[in-house]
C-alpha cells in the first residue's frame, strides 16, 4: 500500500513537471525548468506541510483538528496586523517587525488550539463541530477586524492600509544555493525552511521520545494509557496546542512570507487540503510532507505554466485557462480522499472524546 502511494506521488509529480518542460522547452533549458518547479513546489507546499504536521500532532493524540483552515487564517491576519503595527505605528524596523508578526501568528494558532482542546477534550464537544466553530470564528473575526481597521474613513486607520514591512527575506543555504542550475531550490524563505525542519523534528518527537510514545498511546487507546498513569487530558491539551502553534506558523506564511497583504479568506481551503495530505501520508510526518509536496507541485505547475503562457501550443489551449489549471490541486484532493490510491489507517481513538473512569 505504501509503495502504491509513493508510486502515485512520483507519477503525478513527473507528469506535472513534464508538461511544463515540454511547454517551456523552446525558451528555457529543461533542467532550469525542473529546478524552478522544485523551488516553487517547496515554497508553496509550506502551508500544506505545516497544516498537515498540525493535524499529525493533534490526531496522533486522538483529537481531530478540522480547524486548521481557521487557525491559519486567523494567524495570517493577526501576524500581518502585528507586523504592520510594529513597523508603521511603533516604528520598528522591517525585519524585527516581521519576526514579531511570526511570533504573534504562532501564538494565535496556539490560542485557537487551546480553544479546540477545551471544546474537544474538556467539554467533549463533537470534534467535527469544534473544528467547524473555529473555522467560522476565524472567517468572521478576521473579516470584521479587517473592515473595522482599514475600511472607510471611520475605521481605525482611516481607510488607508499602512505600508507593510514587506516579506521575510530569502535564506541563502551556504554552498548548496551556489550550485549552478539547482541553486534556486536552496534559496528559500525562513518559514519554508522551518517547515522542512519541523517534518524531521515531528518525526523524532513522535517516534523516538517518551512524550511521543505516550501521545500515540493516548491516540490509540486512551484508557490503556490512563491505566499506566498517563494523564490523557494533559497529553491531548499539549499536543493540540502544539498543533495549533504549527498551524499558526503555516498561517504566517500567507501574509509574512508569500505576499505582504491580507485578503479575506485568503487561505482558500489550504487547511483542508493539508488534512487530505495528512490522511494520504498515513498520519506520519514524512508521508504527510510527501503528500503536501504533490499538492505543492500542482500549484507550482499552475505558477510555472503562467510563465510560458505564450508557448502553449494551440491544441493545448485549455492549459491557458488558469481556472482549469487551478483545479488540479482540488481534483487531486478528491482523488486521494476517495481512497482509490489506497486507504490509510487513522489512530484508533481519533476523534473520540475520552471519558475518565466511571462505571463500565
Amino acid at each position: 500500500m505504501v509503495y502504491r502511494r509513493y508510486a502515485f506521488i512520483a507519477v503525478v509529480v513527473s507528469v506535472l513537471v513534464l508538461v511544463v518542460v515540454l511547454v517551456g522547452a523552446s525558451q528555457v533549458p529543461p533542467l532550469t525548468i525542473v529546478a524552478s518547479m522544485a523551488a516553487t513546489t517547496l515554497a508553496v507546499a509550506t502551508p500544506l506541510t505545516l497544516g498537515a504536521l498540525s493535524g499529525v500532532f493533534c490526531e496522533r493524540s486522538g483529537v481531530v483538528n478540522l480547524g486548521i483552515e481557521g487557525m491559519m487564517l486567523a494567524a495570517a491576519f493577526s501576524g500581518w496586523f502585528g507586523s504592520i503595527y510594529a513597523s508603521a505605528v511603533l516604528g520598528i524596523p522591517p525585519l524585527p517587525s516581521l519576526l514579531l508578526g511570526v511570533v504573534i501568528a504562532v501564538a494565535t494558532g496556539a490560542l485557537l488550539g487551546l480553544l479546540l482542546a477545551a471544546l474537544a477534550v474538556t467539554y467533549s464537544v463533537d470534534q467535527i463541530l469544534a473544528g467547524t466553530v473555529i473555522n467560522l470564528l476565524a472567517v468572521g473575526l478576521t473579516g470584521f477586524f479587517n473592515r473595522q481597521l482599514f475600511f472607510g474613513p471611520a475605521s481605525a486607520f482611516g481607510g488607508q492600509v499602512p505600508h507593510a514591512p514587506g516579506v521575510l527575506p530569502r535564506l541563502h543555504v551556504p554552498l548548496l544555493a551556489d550550485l549552478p542550475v539547482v541553486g534556486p531550490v536552496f534559496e528559500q524563505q525562513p518559514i519554508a525552511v522551518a517547515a522542512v525542519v519541523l517534518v524531521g523534528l515531528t518525526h523524532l518527537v513522535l517516534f523516538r521520545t517518551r512524550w511521543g510514545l505516550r501521545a500515540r498511546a493516548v491516540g490509540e487507546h486512551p484508557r490503556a494509557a490512563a491505566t499506566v498513569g498517563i494523564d490523557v487530558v494533559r497529553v491531548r491539551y499539549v499536543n493540540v496546542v502544539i498543533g495549533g502553534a504549527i498551524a499558526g506558523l503555516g498561517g504566517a506564511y500567507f501574509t509574512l512570507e508569500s505576499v505582504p497583504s491580507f485578503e479575506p479568506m485568503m487561505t482558500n481551503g489550504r487547511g483542508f487540503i493539508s488534512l487530505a495530505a495528512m490522511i494520504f501520508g498515513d498520519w506520519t510526518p514524512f508521508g504527510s510532507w510527501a503528500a503536501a509536496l504533490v499538492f505543492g507541485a500542482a500549484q507550482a505547475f499552475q505558477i510555472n505554466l503562467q510563465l510560458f503562457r505564450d508557448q502553449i501550443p494551440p491544441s493545448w489551449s485549455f492549459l491557458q485557462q488558469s481556472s482549469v489549471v487551478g483545479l488540479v490541486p482540488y481534483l487531486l484532493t478528491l482523488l486521494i480522499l476517495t481512497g482509490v490510491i489506497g486507504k490509510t489507517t487513522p489512530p484508533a481513538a481519533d476523534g473520540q472524546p475520552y471519558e475518565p473512569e466511571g462505571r463500565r
Partner: protein
Amino acid sequence: MKAVLEARGITKRFSGVLANDRVDLDLGEGEIHALLGENGAGKSTLMNILYGLVRPDEGELRRSGRPVSLRSPSDAIALGIGMVHQHFMLIPVFTVAENIVLGAEPVRRGLLDRGSASAEVRGLSARYGLDVDPDARVEDLPVGVQQRVEILKALYRKAEILILDEPTAVLTPQEVDELFRVLRGLTSRGVSVLFITHKLREVLAVADRVTVMRAGKVVGAAIPAETDERGLAAMMVGREVVLQVSKAPARPKAVVLEVERLGVAGRRGSGGDAVRDVSFSVRAGEILGIAGVQGNGQTELVEAVTGLSPARDGRVLLRGRDVTGALPRALIERGVSHVPEDRQRHGLVLSYSVADNLVLCTYHRAPFAVRGVLRDDAREENARRLIKAYDIRAPGPGTPVSALSGGNQQKVILAREMSRPVELLVASQPTRGVDVGSIEHIHREIVAARDAGAAVLLVSAELDEILALSDRIAVMYRGGLVAMRDAGAVSRTELGMLMAGVLPGEAAPAPGAGEEAAPASAAGGAEA
C-alpha cells in the same frame, strides 16, 4: 498469614445505585484469592477502587497494614499493585516492549531507549517463565500471549500484588491451565494474586481462598477444599441453583438448515477470510453447538446464516430452499429466530421500551399494525403476556429496555424470538454477561425450543454451555470447522485441544508454545 492489601468498609454509589456496600476484603501474602460474584455484584467496582481508577465514597484501604489513599492508577502502581484487565489494556499497533514500558520508559539522552526496553522485557520473561518476543506487534499475537504481556506489564512496574479481572474469559482451556501455572509460579515468588471471576470451576481449581460478593455486599468466604460448586453457586446467587440442564435425548427429524461450503470475507484490513469452506446441517429437534475461542469466525458465520452479511462462496439452505443472501426480514418470515451475540448493539433498540422491542420483528403485521397504523393496545398486551411468561424483571411494558439488567435484556430478546413460529433458532453467546439465575432460565428455553421441534444452532465460547446443551458439537478454529462430534462422545479435554487447533493424532504442543506452534498445520487440516 500477613495481609498485603486490605479493604475496610468500602462503599461506593453510582448515581444512587449502591455498587459496593461496606465491603471488607483482605489479600494475604503469596496467596491466590478469588473474588467470586455475578455480573453486577460489584466485583469490578471494588477492583477499580483497589487500582485507583475509582474513588470510594467511604471506607479505607491498607497496604501491608498502612492506610493508603489511591487517587489514580499511578498511586496504585507506586504501591506495587498491578492489574490485568478483562479487556486488555494493550495498544495493538505497539510492540510488546513498547506496551510493557509505556508510562515508565527507559530513556537515553532524551530519546527512548528501545534496546534496553527489549532487554529488560527479555530478562523479565526469562525470570518468570513468561515467554514473549519483545519486538512482536501485539495485534499479531494470540490472546493468551497478549495476557502474558499484560502480566509482564505489571511485573515490570514491580507489582507485588496482581489483580486479574476475569482473566480466563478469552482463553482456551489449555491456556487457562497455563495461566494457572503462571499464577502459581508468581505466588511462589511472593506475589499475591487477587483473581476476579464468576466461574466456579476455576475458583475451585486455583484459589487458596474465596470471597463471594452479591448485590454489592460480601456474602461469604470459603476455602475451596471445604466447599463445592453447588455451595459456591448458592452463595453467589442467594438460593439453590440447578447447574445441570436436564434434557431428554434429542429426536432429530428433517434437516432444517444446511450450510454448504460457506465462505465469508474477513473484515476489511484483517486479511484472509473469516469463514472458510464450512459445511454442516442442523435437523429439527436437535441442538448443534459450535464451540471455539472467540474470534475464530463464529460471528461471521452467524451473520451469514442470518442474512446480516453476505456470503463469499457457498450456499445456505433452509428446508431445502436456497436462502443465501436473503434479507433478514425474509428469513424471519420463514421462521428463523436469532439471538445475536451483542445484545445491546444488534439485539435491542436500547432507547425503546420493552414493549416496542418485543415486536421488532412483527410490528408491521396484525395484530400490531392494522392498515399501516400501529396498535398500542395489542403491543402492550403482548408485552404483558411475555413479561410474565419469560419472567422478565421490568417495572412495566413502557420501561426503556436500557434500564434492565443484562439477564433481563437477554430474556426480552429470547421472548421476542421465541414468540413466533420457530423453524431455526440461532443463538450466539446467549448467556454472555448474564447472571446465573437467568442462565438457568435461558438454557431451559433453548432446550424447550428444541423439544418443540426447532433446529437450534448454538454458538458459544463457554465450553460448559456447549457441553450442557448440545446434541452434537462442532469446533471452529481459524474460520474452519475442525471437528464434528456427538455430544456424548467427546471430552472436555478433547474439545479444548480442538479449540486450540490441535487435531487428534497430532502431538500435543509443549505448554507455552502451543499458540504459536500449532496453527499452520491445523489450518491446513481444516481445509482437508
